[in-house]
């Protein structure tokens, strides 16, 4: 995801906004972020995404969203967000010893 460079040296015209592109690679899979591109509106963003990101059958469906609409966690939140789950090993099935005689479980 990109930070819009509004620090630019006096842009003469408005640049096309930045869009993030998500592609469903095959039926049954989630859409995945593949990259970004510039386009004036959503319709053009999908057309451009098709040309830039699916030239070799990489997708069956495209989502685009303007980059400024994406809210993201910050790297400094890593501790508070993810550390609590590190101590909860019992959330994984391998935490429990099940006797072999019980069979597949």
């Amino acid at each position, binding site marked *: 995801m*990109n*930070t819009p460079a509004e*620090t630019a040296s006096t*842009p003469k*015209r*408005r640049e*096309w906004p*930045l869009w993030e592109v998500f592609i469903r690679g095959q039926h049954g899979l989630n859409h995945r972020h593949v990259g970004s591109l510039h386009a004036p*509106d959503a319709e*053009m963003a999908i057309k451009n995404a098709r040309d830039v990101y699916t030239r070799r059958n990489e997708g069956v469906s495209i989502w685009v969203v303007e980059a400024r609409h994406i809210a993201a966690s910050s790297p400094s939140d890593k501790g508070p967000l993810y550390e609590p789950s590190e101590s909860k090993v019992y959330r994984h099935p391998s935490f429990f010893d099940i006797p072999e005689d019980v069979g597949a479980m």
Partner: protein
Amino acid sequence: MYAQMVKSEASKDDPDKLAAFQARIDAGDKIEPKDWMPAGYRKTLIRQIGQHAHSEIVGQLPEGNWITRAPTLERKAILLAKVQDEAGHGLYLYCAAETLGVSRDELTEMLLDGRMKYSSIFNYPTLTWADMGAVGWLVDGAAIMNQVPLQRTSFGPYSRAMIRICKEESFHQRQGYDIMMKMCQGTDAQKRMAQDAMNRFWYPALMMFGPSDKDSVHSAQSMTWKIKMNTNDELRQKFVDQTVPQAEYLGLTIPDPDLVWNDDKGGYDFSEPDWSEFFDVIQGNGPCNTERLAARNKAWDDGAWVRDGLMAHAEKRAARKVAAE
């Protein structure tokens, strides 16, 4: 490569932060856009990725020259697909650079007014159809040498762009070699054309790796940051070792009388390109510098009304939608 002689920036950041940053790099972490990074790392990467992106875009010109003159419809379709890929590669890279806080239009303007460079190789003309073969085989071949290790570069968006690019680049090299094979199996005149293309592109291809950087402080810094993975000489050697047997298969002669296998180092000894020519070309005095930049400037200026028109249309529609709600 597509990025030659990229100057690295010294960092005047807090030494503790610098050390922590370097530790992340040494541990093989990927640096993402929102992570803290030294100002020098950011600046050097903008320069390097920008130059790489510009090379992809300007690189369309020498090949675009032959699209309408391709010998068959199939060759034309293939070349068109290749040139379209180059545009795509440029776009992936501009997006990667943009994550560092520079905009694509700013980068474009720096290319157009000469503040930023593109690879020296694209300042050479493509005179015959065999040049399409030589460019794909040698120029894309040299680019791959550099781009494959860069997939492991420390900056996440750059690494991901390189992974996408490398997937597509192998098609480029193979289509070039395929053209060369066809020419070399052809008439004497066609073989001569293939040899002539090889003669003209061999040294410019070797120059793509840039001058020896054994003692360069910039290269050392970039290698510590893992934004440069090998020295220029290492990559050039690898390229020569890989290319010589391919030329032999084609029955082409490498235009270097001093080229000889060296058992001790397990590689070929070869002549250095003429570095004064290289410096001349990057300073703007190559055979096609003026033409290339003029073509990019014309495309940018001629396209201005389209960019503005589409933006105005999008804004008008958005305003109408708000009014209707």
